[in-house]
């Protein structure tokens, strides 16, 4: 990509810090770029570090977890060297986030209309009335029926689907350049998930917003994103354009995920689960963290850890056997 990326995460390392010293590395050497308007997915299972990576970008790391090294640059400005005030000024007009559970992100005692209007008032300097008008129009855009009446409701008076729409309206009210999504549809039923994903896609296209979408569901990534990074045990093991990664995986973990999830379009395919368990991050081995579960593992996989290397146009994989093992498998 020739243009400068909107957001660039460089060698990000996150760790649990105890008594001033890093004890466990939970996100290790994560690097990726997100361009203007790009739809970027991060896939992984629980404990892969996908949500923490996202939270590091948003500056919302939970207590005890800190950035050990690496940088997050937004439009060339490094987050890690900013004051918290400067960071906060970015959250809203430049970067916004939506969560899995809207109930925890919305203030239960403030009417939803006011909650949406708060951002535009603070960041865009709108008057109270203008901000409320904007809030109502955002609610209408996100497909909330009867937005004028609903704006006066409290979060608990709305259904889960509507709350998720409120959160999207709130996140997009200042037209951010990047929308961070942490499993936004996992708690929703399928028909609502379908509606919300469609809405996200449409809104991002309209506003030119880039999306960083964290999920465990490969099919959701397939339908929502254009680029994807697969994370395992705190590292990116494979990345590239969604279609080519999911059609022709170049890392055994990606392949394992694809083989273990039932595919709606191929119901008769045998499922093949990944044997074993994710490694204990507190005592990492020197080798590839996937090696103990990998059917293709070679002696070198246990001896040293493979780095991300190019395996095709815009594609990276961190596997020593990346070129040999899948030949013909998905061609």
């Amino acid at each position, binding site marked *: 990509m020739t243009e400068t990326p909107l957001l660039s995460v460089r060698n990000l390392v996150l760790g649990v810090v105890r008594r001033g010293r890093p004890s466990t590395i939970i996100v290790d050497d994560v690097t990726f770029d997100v361009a203007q308007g790009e739809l970027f997915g991060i896939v992984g299972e629980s404990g892969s570090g996908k949500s923490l990576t996202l939270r590091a970008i948003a500056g919302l790391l939970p207590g005890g977890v800190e950035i050990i090294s690496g940088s997050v640059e937004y439009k060339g400005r490094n987050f890690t060297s900013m004051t918290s005030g400067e960071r906060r000024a970015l959250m809203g007009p430049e970067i916004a986030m939506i969560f899995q559970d809207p109930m925890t992100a919305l203030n239960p005692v403030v009417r939803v209309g006011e909650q949406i209007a708060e951002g535009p008032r603070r960041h865009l300097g709108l008057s109270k009335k203008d901000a409320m008008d904007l809030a109502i129009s955002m609610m209408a855009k996100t497909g909330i029926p009867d937005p004028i009446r609903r704006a006066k409701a409290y979060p608990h008076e709305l259904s889960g689907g509507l709350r998720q729409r409120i959160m999207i309206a709130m996140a997009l009210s200042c037209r951010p350049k990047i929308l961070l999504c942490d499993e936004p549809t996992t708690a929703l039923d399928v028909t609502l998930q379908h509606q919300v994903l469609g809405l996200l896609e449409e809104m991002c296209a309209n506003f030119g917003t880039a999306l960083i979408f964290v999920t465990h569901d490969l099919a959701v990534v397939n339908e929502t994103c254009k680029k994807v990074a697969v994370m395992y045990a705190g590292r990116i093991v494979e990345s590239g354009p969604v279609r080519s990664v999911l059609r022709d995986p170049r890392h055994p973990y990606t392949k394992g995920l694809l083989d273990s999830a039932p595919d709606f379009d191929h119901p008769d395919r045998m499922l093949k*689960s990944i*044997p*074993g*368990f994710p490694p*204990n991050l507190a005592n990492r081995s020197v080798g590839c963290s996937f090696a103990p*579960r990998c059917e293709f593992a070679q002696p070198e996989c246990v001896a040293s850890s493979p780095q991300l290397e190019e395996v095709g146009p815009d594609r990276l994989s961190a596997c020593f056997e990346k070129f040999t093992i899948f030949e013909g498998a998905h061609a």
Partner: protein
Amino acid sequence: MTTPTAVLVKFKQSRRAANSRSLKRWYQNGPLLAGMIIVGIVVVVAVFAPLISPYDPIKQDLLSTLQSPSSAHWLGTDKLGRDVLSRLMWGARVDLRIGFLAVLIPFVFGSIIGALAGYFGGWFDVVVMRIVDVFFAFPFYVIVIALVFVFGSGETSIYLAIAVVSWVAYAKIVRGEVIVAKTQDYVTAARLGGMSHMRILVRHIGPNVLSQVIIYAMSDIVMDIMAIVTLGYLGLGIAPPTPEWGSMILDGQEFITTQWQQATIPGLMVVVMSLGLSWIGDGLSDLLSPDRRK
């Protein structure tokens, strides 16, 4: 399918980790450790008081009353010439014994009543909880003092008075815990396993709610010791001349300006004991709260 060996490997690892973690949790648990040291010292002194106390705690020596601390009497003597340090040691025996024993009856009785009410609900629950509310609404000391007047002062009536008053707290706590525990899926599974209500209550729910009650019992011992001392101070507790911290404070207070240690040291002991037991309670609640994960 996961290969059984892989399952086995992971399982053994986590087991070892769990063991070392629980050990670590014991000695890294600051409050628990500090509390156990404090209470431990007091308990050891109390148990061995007959051996280590320098004087007989009730033997009067009217020739050497109200002495200031000296090498012969580290904490001086009281108005009847009794050694304050010895009385303090023997007093710990009485106060701790009553404190710990007085917790037992309400603990057992209250827990059973609360468990039955919480598990079965219905009219039994309604009736029990109304009774509990009545006891709860009563001021603690008013009941205790009234009962001591009825039954006369002395150890038995203190046990009785405390039992009557404090079972309600156990009933409330256990009832709440049982109500939560009985909605857990493992209780439904036990029902489906054809087990009787009693069996489920005792074997499946009981162990899961017990830790909360034990934690409360620690703070209840504190309250009981306070109650005994207060009763002693009010002259309603253990009859003299048996040494007891509360009556020592009462005896010492008239000389507070000249012989400050006589009232202050027993008072301080009450505070230290309370602190130690409270720390143990805090530490235990960290340690025993079931690791529900997530």
